[in-house]
């Protein structure tokens, strides 16, 4: 019986590649992937300095390295502090960059790369705020 034979053959030799998805399906998949990436990015925005790293850095700066310790909740809170500090620096730099970009006669009006000079401008106030 030919139909059965064909089915058996198909079962024996399953196609190596999945049947090519139609373009719509592919686009849907890509959209889903992009959505997932965006979700990951949202996670990324909550990236903190790893607690272990922070602990070792702080420990390094304690004057009595062997005596002084830091509790886990305190470490987490310091992580939040550090993250806020870093994000604040980036956002202020972006604000400065945006402002100077709007200046028509600005010599530094090339692309929207955050530069060291932006950081130089915001550092005094940032350090006063933290």
């Amino acid at each position, binding site marked *: 019986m030919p139909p059965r034979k064909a089915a058996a053959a198909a079962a024996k030799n399953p196609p190596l590649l999945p049947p090519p998805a139609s373009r719509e399906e592919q686009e849907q998949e890509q959209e889903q992937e992009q959505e997932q990436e965006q979700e990951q990015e949202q996670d990324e925005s909550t990236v903190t300095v790893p607690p272990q790293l922070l602990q070792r850095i702080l420990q390094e700066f304690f004057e009595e390295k062997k005596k002084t310790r830091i509790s886990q909740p305190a470490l987490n809170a310091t992580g939040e*502090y550090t993250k806020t500090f870093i*994000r604040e620096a980036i*956002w202020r730099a972006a604000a400065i960059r945006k402002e100077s970009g709007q200046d028509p006669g600005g010599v530094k009006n090339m692309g929207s790369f955050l530069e060291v000079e*932006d*950081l*130089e401008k915001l550092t005094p106030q940032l350090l006063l705020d933290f």
Partner: protein
Amino acid sequence: MSSDTEVDEALRDRLKSALWFTIGKIVDAECVTLRTNASPQFIAALTELVWTQLENVGRDLESFAKHAGRTTVNTDDVLLLARRNDGLEELLRGFVEKEVAAGKGKGKGKGRAR
């Protein structure tokens, strides 16, 4: 003694590299949100800035704890860091309270799992 300081230097360099890497990741994430880019020099300078800030933070925390007659830094000391910035203090206090609440709910949970 000299070998000790050499080891110290090497350790600090490694810690700074790790910090650099982390800051690079945060900058990348924020730049996506802000639709901008950051030059590598910007990340390097920001790393130096954060490193210096952490140097002060570390010494401050130790002093605060010592002043309270403790050798262990706790959350009160961290909140003292933000004593001159009401907004920041509020943010940190909220964070600490949330962590405490989460800790009570989960028992001895290890914070936010990543």
